């Protein structure tokens, strides 16, 4: 087997068996990078009994490091605690680039800090949008500022996300690449026989029923649309705190036969729910990149959405403001253009526009750019931290100096040569 071109370590608290957008992104990106001939290793924390080394499809090696998660799947932040294991993994696998995912992941921030101290190239991908005003966001943004002060390159999943990240962290916009997420078009295919839209038009909603996903908007929009169009029915998949409000709405307007509530839908069944519909409704108030609308478009559904990150071509989506009247107007427009939609053609266009292979190739370019960045010594790096704030800058400098000293101490106790390199295991397909 030829020597891999790049050896990438993906670090995040969020990986399978936990399910979500970030996890999916890391997995698909890793698989495509493996197909391009690179070596990819994933590092995450242990999930229950799943601890140690596991191999996934294509020889993707995953280290489930036995650090306990403490809240929302995040590893307990010890700042320096993960230095020994990160150093061991980087040396064992002969990593060249470290790629961290998700600003909310403590393991990601710590690993990126240690990787920079040890002189590795780091890339960071931000998947979500965050606020600026509440206490949690302020602290998170400060941590992000610290991590991104010394990064080589950053990736955001949409222009909205790029603006948000640049404002929160003070990072130079020139260092941030925009690589949109993709969708698994092989899995999300239109139905072989499209349900007829002559008698009944089905509008599908699949999302968590929480405030941020616009569940309150749905409560206003659904009865109005049902009143205007007697031939429209809704299918609502997903669960959450706002479930109760939707049930109340159904009762109040007697829409039990026109609004079907499916409850939580596992991801493997999402496609089978989507293909029963003609229109997909997304009412999220804010989203860095809405993969749900891509999945719907890949299945041949016309989308009605609020203006969230993640763009579809104009003829595949009808945009609306997050206001009930505007959304009803958008649904009316969607119903009127529904006959001209060809699901197969939509699916084929999505295949070309949003493919994980394309994302992997673009990410490869970011890695190459990161590798070309010059290696700065400790003093130059410290000067970058000082610009982060009056007292914050000094705190960050202290943290980095201590990290550097701890690294040198570890090198004394366990020299680099003592860490044995792991062989690359070649799985024949």
């Amino acid at each position: 087997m030829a020597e891999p071109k790049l050896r990438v370590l993906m670090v995040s608290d969020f990986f399978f068996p936990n399910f979500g957008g970030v996890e999916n992104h890391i997995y698909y990106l890793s698989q495509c990078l493996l197909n391009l001939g690179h070596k990819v290793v994933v590092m995450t924390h242990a999930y229950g009994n799943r601890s140690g080394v596991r191999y996934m499809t294509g020889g993707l090696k995953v280290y489930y490091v036995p650090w306990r998660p403490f809240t929302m799947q995040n590893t307990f932040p010890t700042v320096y605690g993960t230095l020994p294991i990160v150093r061991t993994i980087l040396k064992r696998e002969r990593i060249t680039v470290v790629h961290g995912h998700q600003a909310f992941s403590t393991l990601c921030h710590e690993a990126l800090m240690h990787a920079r101290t040890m002189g590795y190239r780091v890339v960071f991908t931000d998947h979500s949008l965050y606020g600026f005003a509440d206490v949690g966001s302020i602290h998170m943004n400060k941590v992000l500022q610290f991590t991104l002060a010394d990064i080589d390159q950053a990736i955001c999943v949409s222009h909205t996300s790029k603006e948000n990240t640049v404002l929160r962290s003070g990072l130079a916009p020139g260092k941030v690449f925009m690589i949109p997420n993709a969708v698994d078009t092989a899995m999300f295919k239109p139905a072989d026989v499209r349900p007829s839209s002559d008698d009944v038009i089905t509008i599908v909603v699949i999302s968590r029923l929480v405030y941020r996903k616009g569940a309150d908007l749905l409560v206003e929009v659904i009865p109005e649309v049902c009143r205007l169009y007697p031939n429209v029915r809704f299918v609502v998949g997903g669960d959450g705190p706002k479930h109760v409000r939707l049930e109340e709405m159904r009762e109040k307007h007697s829409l039990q036969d026109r609004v079907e509530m499916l409850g939580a839908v596992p991801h493997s069944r999402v496609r089978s729910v989507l293909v029963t519909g003609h229109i997909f409704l997304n009412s999220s108030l804010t989203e860095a990149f809405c993969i749900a609308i891509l999945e719907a478009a890949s299945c041949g559904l016309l989308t009605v959405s609020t203006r969230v990150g993640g763009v579809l071509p104009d003829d595949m989506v009808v945009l609306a403001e997050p206001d009930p009247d505007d959304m009803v107007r958008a649904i009316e427009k969607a119903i009127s253009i529904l006959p001209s939609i060809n699901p197969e053609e939509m699916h084929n266009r999505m295949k070309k526009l949003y493919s994980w292979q394309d994302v992997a190739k673009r990410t490869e370019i970011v890695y190459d750019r990161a590798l070309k960045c010059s290696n700065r010594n400790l003093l130059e790096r410290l000067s970058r931290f000082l610009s982060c704030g009056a007292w914050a800058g000094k705190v960050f400098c202290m943290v980095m100096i201590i990290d550097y000293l701890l690294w040198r101490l570890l090198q004394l106790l366990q020299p680099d040569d003592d860490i044995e390199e792991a062989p690359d295991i070649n799985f024949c397909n």
Partner: protein
Amino acid sequence: MVSSSLSSKRYTYIHESGSETRRGAIDIHHVIINRSRSTGYARLMGLAFFLVILGVSMYSFIEKDNPVRTLSWSCLLSGFFVVIQSRKLVKKESVIIMPTFGIQIETQYLSGKTVSRFIPIDKVLKPVLVECVTPVTCYWSLSLFLRGEEQLTLVFKELRPSLKMLVPIWKALCTLIGTDQSEIITEEKHVVSG
């Protein structure tokens, strides 16, 4: 007869086998720690001394009177600690492979004590090389799947020899139980050269 030996900073691996021509000869693999008896004890004494100083200084903060009593108690407790820990100082671990019969795993301590375990051949399902991940490090270990036991049995319980040393032992164990090694797809060139 010593067939081969490998040496690293911490461990030395020695392979003893019977005559090459005679099949069914006993195969012995030793992994020896590269530290002399005195180094092992010296480390323990150093640690004990440190504990004594720590104990005395902590106690002198808490109880300001009678330092002699605290010193004597600290020495006594550290002495106990040295005695207990010295029993755990390992000198050598060996694997004795007896074809068609079984495997004997031995651990020899510095104090002269030897602990051994015999595993009959029909109990061994498969030897495996496993990567063990702890919160601070990751290392290779050689383990056995045994019939009727849920947990893997470690071949080397105290020592952590490198993969280079474990691979010949693993191969010998595979040959013993008749596992076809060509089924196992491994890129070994890096192990040999690295």
